[in-house]
């Protein structure tokens, strides 16, 4: 699924329902994989950018049917894999099996449930397998070796390596342990690896790919541009910069 890939994140429905699709399509032009986030009232793994995006979208009454509608349209018009990212509660409330079936129907390729660790993911894994949806699980810098092996076993999409200790949100540097961890995962895991959290620059992306990662996930910086400068061109420039870093 991944090879020197740019994975871009956008919160579904953001910045407004009207403008969302335009931005999503722009991201698709530059990306190898799209990660679409289900907005949640209390996104505790996310920093202020994505939290703000979630809140804004929910304030306008955005709902999960609309997330699925966006995906249905997007997958009809684009031939690019889409990962649906969510906190567990919206999935739990809809019913795990229902949610996964609906996701499959509209064309979701893979799912990442941030606060559903492997211990509680038994049903999720088997429903996803039945529906042919790939599972993406998180690994962190502090995940012990044995646990990485267990996560690698249940992952069918790719392993999402969280680049640092903290929440999502644009940062300029990389954690000193990151490169070592990428190499370690590459030498021990059968799954592909993507690195995310805090990546905001082409130069960071390049280093991550050079270390052997198969992909880089970028989100908050893109939302920061959409929110702050509201400039289509600035967003294009950022995506070009990231892409250059990754593909060079």
């Amino acid at each position, binding site marked *: 699924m991944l090879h020197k890939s740019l994975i871009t994140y956008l919160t579904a429905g953001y910045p407004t329902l009207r403008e969302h699709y335009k931005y999503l399509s722009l991201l698709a032009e530059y990306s190898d994989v799209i990660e679409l986030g289900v907005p*949640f*009232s*209390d996104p*505790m*793994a996310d*920093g*202020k950018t994505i*939290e703000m995006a979630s*809140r804004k979208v*929910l304030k306008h009454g955005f*709902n*999960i049917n609309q997330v699925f509608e966006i995906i249905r349209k997007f997958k009809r018009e684009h031939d690019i894999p889409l990962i649906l990212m969510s906190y*567990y*509660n*919206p*999935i*739990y*409330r*809809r019913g795990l099996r229902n949610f996964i079936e609906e996701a499959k129907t509209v064309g979701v390729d893979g799912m990442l449930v*941030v*606060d*559903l*660790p492997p*211990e*509680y993911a038994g049903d999720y894994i088997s429903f996803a397998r039945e529906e042919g949806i790939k599972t993406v*699980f*998180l*690994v*962190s*810098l*502090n*995940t*012990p070796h044995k*646990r990485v092996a267990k*996560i690698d076993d249940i992952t069918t999409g790719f392993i999402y390596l*969280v680049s640092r*200790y*903290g*929440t999502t949100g644009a940062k300029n540097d990389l954690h000193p342990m990151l490169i070592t961890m990428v190499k370690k995962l590459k030498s021990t895991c059968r799954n592909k690896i993507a690195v995310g959290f805090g990546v905001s620059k082409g130069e960071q992306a390049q280093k991550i790919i050079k270390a052997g990662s198969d992909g880089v996930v970028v989100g908050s910086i893109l939302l920061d541009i959409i929110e702050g400068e509201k400039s289509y061109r600035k967003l294009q420039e950022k995506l070009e910069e990231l892409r250059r870093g990754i593909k060079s």
Partner: protein
Amino acid sequence: MKFGEFGGRYVPEILIPPLEELEESYEKLKNDEKFKRLLNHYLEKYAGRPTPLYFAKNLTRRVGGAKLYLKREDLLHGGAHKINNTIGQALLAKFMGKKRLIAETGAGQHGVATSMAGALLGFRVEIYMGYEDMKRQRVNVYRMKLLGANVIPVKKGTQRLKDAINEALRDWVASFSNTHYLIGSAVGPHPFPTIVRDFQSVIGEETKRQILEAEGRLPSAIVACVGGGSNAIGIFYPFLKDEKVKLVGVEAGGMGINTCKNAATLTRGTRGVFHGMLSYFIQNEEGQIKKVHSIAPGLDYPGVGPEHAYLKESGRAVYTHVTDDEALNAFITLSREEGIIPALESAHAIAYGMKIAAGMEKDEVVVINLSGRGDKDMESVMRRLSLCSTNLS
């Protein structure tokens, strides 16, 4: 890890290792004689345990039913039961080599108790508190500052307890190598609900001893207020096997159970997964957590501890609710009848305790957990009473 199907550890991967470390350290420490001696030393000499079980004669006379006993957690250092847990967890954090404590607080009582334990045992302390709560519990904010803690206002979301927990979790994700998250209620991912319950169980253990001494029998009912549920689980837990003792949790009915302005999670909520646990939450049909309301900031939380969800489900405990106004009336009644000003949180338990006692035989006994004192609430009560024109003069 679970209470029936409730509880668990629903957290991002990054928090799994620190939670495992915490669980291991706690399991190692909890039966350690030296640790138990140290904890008891501080509970007795510093916090003021045991607290009395007080027969509220005037209140009993006024109600005209069962005998009402009050478990006086309000007399503890700091003014609430919270110190039982903060000293325990701070000692645990010390053992784990942590240098910094972070905590969430709603009413400010847990923040104060954490600040005290931090000052006592030499930790740097940072407290997350919703901005709305800071406004209505100003005195506690000042107390925390005086005790050397840094109080961080949370101006996001509903600006209340839920949002303070979110921010504390975000802090912990980045800081766990040197920081212990000293959670104050029986909520959150495993092992927090178990740790908090164990440290609060001293309330129930003492109560059992004391009521047997005073009455030669166990009470017919025990009543406690439930926000996250730490004081309630603390007094319930040692009685779980005494099936004749009715356990009653009282949630915040706010402006009424049929309005959207309440925090009666077990009555009005539905199952969900949030703050690391499977439990009941006040949420919409899409799983978005809703804003809740209670006059008592410590009950103003859209979730509830998983063990309470389990006790409700199994039928061992029952959960009910009283409104802001009923709590306020009980607040005044207890002040007038017994000369005890309860915390608004505890006033919910008083209100319901009086209600059921009225319908019971005179030789029956009801114990109410008076989890905290009401000094912190003076400002909000004054404001509220002048608005409602309930005349105190």
